């Protein structure tokens, strides 16, 4: 499974490219609409082609991501996948209670994080050393909140609540508590 940073980089490139194109297009339109013209309507064929393009784009986006972003399919089918490791975590009074002070995972293992809240709605996210996000989910009281993740990069990760739960929620950080190790090597 590719690391989520690769997906973020791809998305950044695609959206930046789109923004540049649409800004240039609007600038061109603003310039041209003030120039002399014939005053005729756009041909309906162009309009219907545009509608078709939007339809294809809207639908295909999700089909493409489902087939290219590895965790998408795994997430929707997680009930049928046996994890290599499971960590049960509880949250109460703005505090995570972890099964151990360090949760160690082997590289390429599929790990299930099962998080329970007994009071408010919280979030559960894993963050890299540079503060970028690996993944997140919501933690809703009275419901099962589980996420299956396959780690493909060795490293040390921090847990942080990703949902606002009042001003106290800002401090819901468990630093460096998840360690992904490569049994055949060492973390750099």
């Amino acid at each position, binding site marked *: 499974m590719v690391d989520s940073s690769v997906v973020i980089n791809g998305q950044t490139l695609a959206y930046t490219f789109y923004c540049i194109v649409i800004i240039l297009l*609007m600038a061109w339109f603003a310039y041209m609409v003030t120039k002399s*013209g014939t005053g005729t309507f*756009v041909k309906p064929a162009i309009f219907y082609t545009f509608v078709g393009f939007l339809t294809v784009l809207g639908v295909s986006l*999700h089909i493409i991501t489902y087939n290219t972003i590895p965790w998408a399919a795994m997430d929707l089918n997680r009930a049928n996948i046996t994890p290599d490791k499971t960590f049960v975590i509880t949250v109460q009074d703005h505090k995570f209670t972890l099964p151990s002070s360090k949760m160690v995972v082997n590289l390429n293992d599929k790990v299930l994080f099962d998080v329970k809240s007994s009071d408010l709605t919280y979030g559960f996210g894993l*963050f890299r050393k540079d503060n970028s996000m*690996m993944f997140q989910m919501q933690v809703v009281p*009275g419901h099962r909140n589980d996420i299956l993740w396959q780690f493909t990069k060795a490293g040390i990760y921090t847990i942080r609540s990703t949902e*606002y739960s*009042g*001003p106290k929620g800002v401090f819901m950080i468990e630093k460096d508590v998840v360690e992904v190790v490569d049994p055949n090597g060492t973390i750099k």
Partner: protein
Amino acid sequence: MSFIKTLMNGEEGLFKGDTLTPMQKMALRFVVIGLVYYGFVVIEGMLMRIFEVTPVSFISQPQFFAIMTAHPLVGIFGSTYSIVFGAFLFLVPFLMKKPLWSIKMANWTLVFVAVGTFVFWFAGFLSHYAPLYTLYWPLPADFNQFSVVGGTFFITGIALVMVGTALFILNIFKTITYTPEGWEKQPSGALLGSALGISGFKNLFRKNKKEHLVSLPVAAIARGTVDMAFNTAIILFTGVLILIYMVGSMLGFDLKTTAIDALLYKNWFWWGLDLIADGLVLIFVAGTWYLLATLITGKKLFMENIARAALLVELVVSWTVWSHHLLSDQAQPGILKVLSGEMVTAFELITQGLAFFITLATLWSARPLKMTNPLKFLLGGLLGFALAVPAGIMQADVGLNRILHNTQWVIGPHVHVAILVGLTMTLYSAIYFLFPILTNGAKMYSQKLVNIHFWCHLIGGIGMGAFMGMAGLKGMLRRSLYVEGEFNTYMVLAALCGTLLLIGFLAFFYNIVMSVGIKGAINIFLPAKLKGKNLLPE
């Protein structure tokens, strides 16, 4: 004319408040209140930007989150609702060529919205009640973090705004359907059917197509108002629910917060909120684009029937789209995530894309156009949605949502660009268009200031969204604080763009004050000397 004279009497003394009709005054009052609250929002936004870079001592952390709670609500209700209400209460009679059903009710609407906004803003300011607009259960009833009394006033303020909104809804639908005194009996049912798109839908199956009884912009206003009615009911119900817990606590009873299912509540809440965000905003904006495009060009709208049908599709989409907010909720059924969260949401790309294309095609048909103030702001509004809608579609994806949800990406390139650039620039376009009509020909004080307003707002809005988005892609969460300055570079750049927005607003505000003068601005709030329901003086 000296500076003082212009400041007091307006540019060339052209604005004369005594010549305004009650309808003009009513619409102008809404706009003034809306702009004052917009000023609140800009200042609050800047305070939060500063705090995110350096936690300044005059703002505490609870105060920061109280500001964050009030900020979007003041923006939506105090500012946007006020401007939209004023414009539509004037435009529906204008387009229907019949008087507004009740000017008195319109003025009461303004009182409820203005007072209600101030009450919840002030309650938050004093008590730091800060469950944020998400109100995820049972956070709003968490009295360990928040004051019960402050919360009670906060919710009461919201309820007052909702009462005002209900009056607006009633006034709009009554104006469409009623028969004015001395008029021939109006076909109420047929008018309503046309406004809501029922007759248009029936036309699909009829050989002899019936003519549309209401114009396209009125149809847009009516359909957006349907979403507004549902949303009002939901917010009122939710407010009453929270109030029950608050009153219970004040009386010494701690009601069981687990009696409400948190996920069900979340679904309910987002269904209601999306009636604004993915419903009435998009429908009203599309309707306003169509109206402005036809008014600016004097031409018929390109593909008018398709545009009308798309508005109906958008209305239905807005009822079925909420699940994209719950893509990271693991207990949410997968079928809802895929169907409602992804597929139906993708329709918004189509409906907004159509509105975008139709508006541009209509403008194109009238080349060459003069780059007037309404036109340039309209183009800015179109660009805003062209940037913000795809950003929203990307996060409404099961795969991408896993790494985007609740980051600054959501609130930056999507929400802020949609509201600040897309929606607000569209509203500014309408304001610049309506200004001479509502003021009986008053002249804008300075075109240079209009240009400063335009460029500062456009660059500031897009820039702020962009830097917030970059921070989000690097992992910065929304609704949080980074006390070690982890994302300071992006936040400083976003704050600089926020400063541009502030400069743009100050240029606009100063320009308007100098155009109508202080005397004229005060006169807007005095009773009209002219009587009757005419839109403009005879």
